[in-house]
C-alpha cells in the first residue's frame, strides 16, 4: 500500500519519518507503512480505498468519519493512523455480508433514515456499537448514543427510527 505525498522541495525525503504498522480492518490483516501524521481516516479512504468512511467537518465535530476501533466508536479524523497498530478497525464496508444488508443498513432503508446519506456511515457505526452494548435501547438511549453524530438533512427522527428498527430485527434473529 502506497500513499503519495506532494514533494514541495522543502524537506529532504530521507527525513520523512515512516512507521510500519499492523492492524486488522473488517476482519482482514494488513501491514502499512505510514507517516505518523497520516490520519486514520485518510489511511482508510486513500490507503485502503474504503471510501464509505466519510470526511465531514475534519474538526472532530460531525462524526461522519466514525469507525469502530476494537469495537468502540472513534472519530477517525482525530486519531493517527499509526495509533491503529495492533488494533482492529471496522468500517461501514464491514457491516454487510456478500449479498445481505446488515439490519442497520436495512433499517435505514426501511425507515428512510437518510436523505443525502453523507452522515449515514458514521451514524451506523455509532449505532452498531450501541446495539452491541445495549440490544434493547430506548429512543432516548439511541438519541444519546448518536449525539456525537451530526445530520443536516433528516432532523434525526428517521435515523432514530432506523436504529430502533435494526434493534428489533437483531433481537428477532
Amino acid at each position, binding site marked *: 500500500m502506497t500513499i503519495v505525498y506532494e514533494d514541495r522541495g522543502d*524537506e529532504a525525503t530521507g527525513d*520523512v*519519518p515512516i*512507521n510500519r504498522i499492523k492492524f486488522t480492518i473488517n476482519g482482514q490483516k494488513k501491514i502499512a507503512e505510514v*507517516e*505518523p*501524521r497520516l*490520519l486514520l481516516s485518510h489511511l482508510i479512504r486513500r490507503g485502503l480505498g474504503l471510501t464509505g468512511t466519510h470526511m465531514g*467537518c*475534519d*474538526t*472532530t*465535530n*460531525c*462524526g461522519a468519519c*466514525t469507525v469502530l476501533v476494537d469495537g*468502540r*466508536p*472513534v*472519530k477517525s*479524523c*482525530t*486519531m*493517527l493512523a*499509526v*495509533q491503529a*497498530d495492533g488494533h482492529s478497525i471496522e468500517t461501514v464496508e464491514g457491516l454487510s455480508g456478500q449479498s445481505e444488508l446488515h439490519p442497520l443498513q436495512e433499517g435505514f432503508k426501511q425507515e428512510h433514515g437518510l436523505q443525502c446519506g453523507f452522515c449515514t456511515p458514521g451514524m451506523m457505526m*455509532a449505532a452498531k456499537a450501541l446495539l452491541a452494548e445495549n440490544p434493547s435501547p430506548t429512543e*432516548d*438511549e*439511541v*438519541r*444519546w*448514543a*448518536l*449525539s*456525537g*453524530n*451530526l*445530520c*443536516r438533512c433528516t*432532523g*434525526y*427522527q428517521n435515523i*432514530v427510527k432506523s436504529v430502533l428498527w435494526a434493534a428489533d430485527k437483531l433481537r428477532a434473529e
Partner: protein
Amino acid sequence: MYPSRFRYEAPRSVGEAISLLSEGGDDAKVLAGGQSLVPLMKLRFASPELIVDINNIPGLDYHREDADGTMRIGALCRHADLEHSALLLSKQPVMASAAPLIADPIVRNRGTLVGSLCHADPQGDWASVVTALGGHVVARGPGGTRVISMADFVTGPFQNSLAPGELAIEAVIPAAKGNLSGGYLKLERRVGDFATVGVAVALETADGTVTRAGIALTGVGGSTISATEAAGTLVGQALTSQTIAAAADLAAAAARPRTDHRGTAEYKRHMVRTFVVRILSRGDGEAGQAAGDTRGANGDSAVTGGRSGAAGGGSANGGAANGGGSDAERAA
C-alpha cells in the same frame, strides 16, 4: 487538514516516556486521548516535533478508590470509563454528574480526564470538577514524582506547570471527611460544544453542617476560577436559603465572563448564580426557590444537567441543527 511533520514514539513504560519527553524538551508533546491535541495539530496551532504516545503503556487506564477513600484516575482513563463507572456513581457524585457532559459520546471514548487537566482549556470541564474537589495531579519526571494541587497546576489558558520531561500520570481526589454531595452543571448550546458556563460544587457535610466546600467555574474567565470566598461562606453553616443565596452571589461575583457568541457577560454571570443555587438546593426545593433559583424562567431546555436532560430535548442533536459547528470545539 494535516498536522505538520513530527516524529512518533510509542513507549511501553512510564520510564521510557519520561526519557523521550526529557530528550524532546519543549518540542515534545504527550498524546493520550488526542481529542484536543490532534485537532490543534491539524489546525497548526500546535506543531510539536516529537509525539510521545502513551497509549501503549500498560496500567494507566485505571480509576480506583484506595482503602482510605482517596480516588485515583490514571492518565489513560477515558471519559467514557468514568461515565459508565459504578464506583463513581456510588462514591463520587460530583465526578459522576460531570462525566456524561464532556464533549460527545464518541469523543468520550478516546479523551482522558488527565489529558483534559493538562490541556488547561479555560472551558475544560474536568479542571473545575477537580478544583472543586480539592484534587491534585501527580507528575513523574527525571527528578522523581511530585504532587501538584490543581490551583498550582493550571498556570494560565492552555498552560500547565509540568516541566519538560514530566508526565502527568494520575489525578488524585482526596477522601471526603464528611458526607460528599454536589455536582456539575453545564450550559451548552449543543452536545459537544464547549461550556457557555459550567459550575462544579463539592460539598462535605456532617450533622447538617458544611465541613468543606469547593466551588469552581468553567468558561467565565481566562482559566478555571476557584470561587474560594463563595465556598468559604458555606463552611460551618447549615444549607439554608440564606446561606445558599450568599454563596451563589459570591460565586457570581468571582466570575469574570466576557460577552461573546455564546452569550453576554451578564447572562453568564447570572447562570453561575443560578447553577450554584440549583446544585446546592438539590433535595431541598424550598431553600432553592427562596434563594432565587430561576429555573423555568430561563428556559431549561438549553441546560444539560445529566443524561436525561440531554436526551430529553426532543432531539439529541436539536441544538446542533441550529448551532452551526465551529472549528475544533472540543473537550480534551
